[in-house]
């Protein structure tokens, strides 16, 4: 069986017309937005620093112009998903977070997504612990195919995680574009 190249051919062209909907995954990280929302009520940083930081990160995220281009070209629904959170509790949230910070970060990104004719779909909550990290049972914990990542891989998730995300995407389409991923 021939080995599939790891990176897609950059010269490839795709016919987008047959597809009913599109999902763009992994073009941005969620943790910066989540942390900024969590830090706002704590008072350790100026609100200007935190809110400008969030807008700066969103404005430089490639997924929004990409979504807009796909939406304009096809008129089909586009869902935007961030990379999964690391499978380790962050040191800035030793007691975990509440859902308010999670929802605020998701709504912030959804605002940018709507401007691009798309919707933001947060990481399914059944894969998340304490609203701030991926449940370690979903982490592959294996070396990346390129062999460049450390042995303990906390950033790449397994097939079980992918199934839940796909279910979320399907659920979204069956409930309509405004339905939130409650999975």
């Amino acid at each position, binding site marked *: 069986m021939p080995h599939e190249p790891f990176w897609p051919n950059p010269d490839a062209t795709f016919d987008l017309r047959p597809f009913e909907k599109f999902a763009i995954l992994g073009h941005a*990280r969620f*943790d*910066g937005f989540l*942390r*900024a929302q969590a*830090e706002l009520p704590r*008072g*350790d*940083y*100026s*609100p*200007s*620093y*935190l809110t*400008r*930081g969030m807008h*700066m*990160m969103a404005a*430089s995220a490639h997924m929004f112009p990409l979504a807009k281009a796909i939406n304009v070209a096809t008129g089909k629904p586009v869902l935007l998903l961030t990379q999964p959170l690391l499978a380790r509790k962050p040191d800035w949230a030793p007691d975990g977070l509440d859902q308010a910070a999670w929802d605020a970060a998701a709504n912030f990104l959804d605002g940018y997504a709507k401007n691009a004719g798309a919707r933001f779909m947060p990481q399914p909550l059944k894969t998340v612990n304490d609203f701030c990290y991926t449940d370690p049972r979903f982490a592959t914990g294996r070396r990346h195919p390129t062999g460049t990542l450390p042995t303990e891989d906390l950033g790449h998730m397994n097939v079980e995680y992918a199934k839940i995300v796909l279910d979320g995407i399907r659920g979204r389409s069956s409930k309509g574009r405004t339905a939130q991923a409650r999975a």
Partner: protein
Amino acid sequence: MTATLGSCFAQHIGRELKKRGYRWLEAEPPVAEFPQPYNEKFQYGMFSFRTGNIYTPRVLRQWLDWAVDGNPSAEFWYKGTQVIDPFRPTVQPDGFADGEECSNARKRTLRAIRDNVPKIDVLVFTLGQTEGWRNKASGWTYAICPGTHGGRFDADRHEFVNFGVSECLADMKQAVRQLRVLNPKIKLLLTVSPVPMVATASAQHVLLANARTKSVLRATAAALTEEADDIDYFPSYELITQPPFRAIFYEPNMRSVSRAGVDFVMDTFFSIYQGDGAAKSTLRAHAPPATMETRDAEAVFCDEIMLDAGIGG
């Protein structure tokens, strides 16, 4: 644990301490999930505390007096609709949203000083300037001239001051007293910035003003180190400016210190202090490197450059 504060040249010392794996105090860390260039614009990681550049002994003393005794100034400036902290005018690009946010941020830095000075073994402070501007009524000294980056100069309210040796010495002694209130065991390592002044508000030519400023700061450092065993001096200034080095460590603008100059100073610094933060400096005979690199030194942010005509906003 080593901490760094002072004028723009001090940024090199903190950066090199981090790069070479020393325990450098970062009392106000940024949101690490934000991109580093964004955090650097907010001057996170530039000094151990988010004070911005501290050029004069008076401003160092002021920060420490506020941290230890309380009652910090509540003054802020406007730059258009932006609110600017007169005591660290460039730490918040585009300014604070309002006076309350500015005041809260200043209080956070003062709290960070109070909470973290007890963790410091050696504070490296780089003396940079003797010229400053102060509020006539309150006596508080600003980081920069009102009107250059926010605020508006008003001769009825603001005045130029050029501190002399006795004032600098008194300010440094008070600063040391305040540091020891928080940490009786803290040691101080003084340096003088080799970066020359770009402008002067005195009536003198800038060459004369620069010689006066650096002489006053060097005399202040000498007096302090000769009086106290736990205050040392490291010759950043001499390693760049003195005749054996023939000004080869300056960039063509004859102000910025080249990458080779920074490396020379820092290599000498670590050759002396490696493993013995308390050692008195015994500068070894160093010849300038045979081949000089011409690449730029890593960017440092100097508020003082705004004093140069046409640059200040």
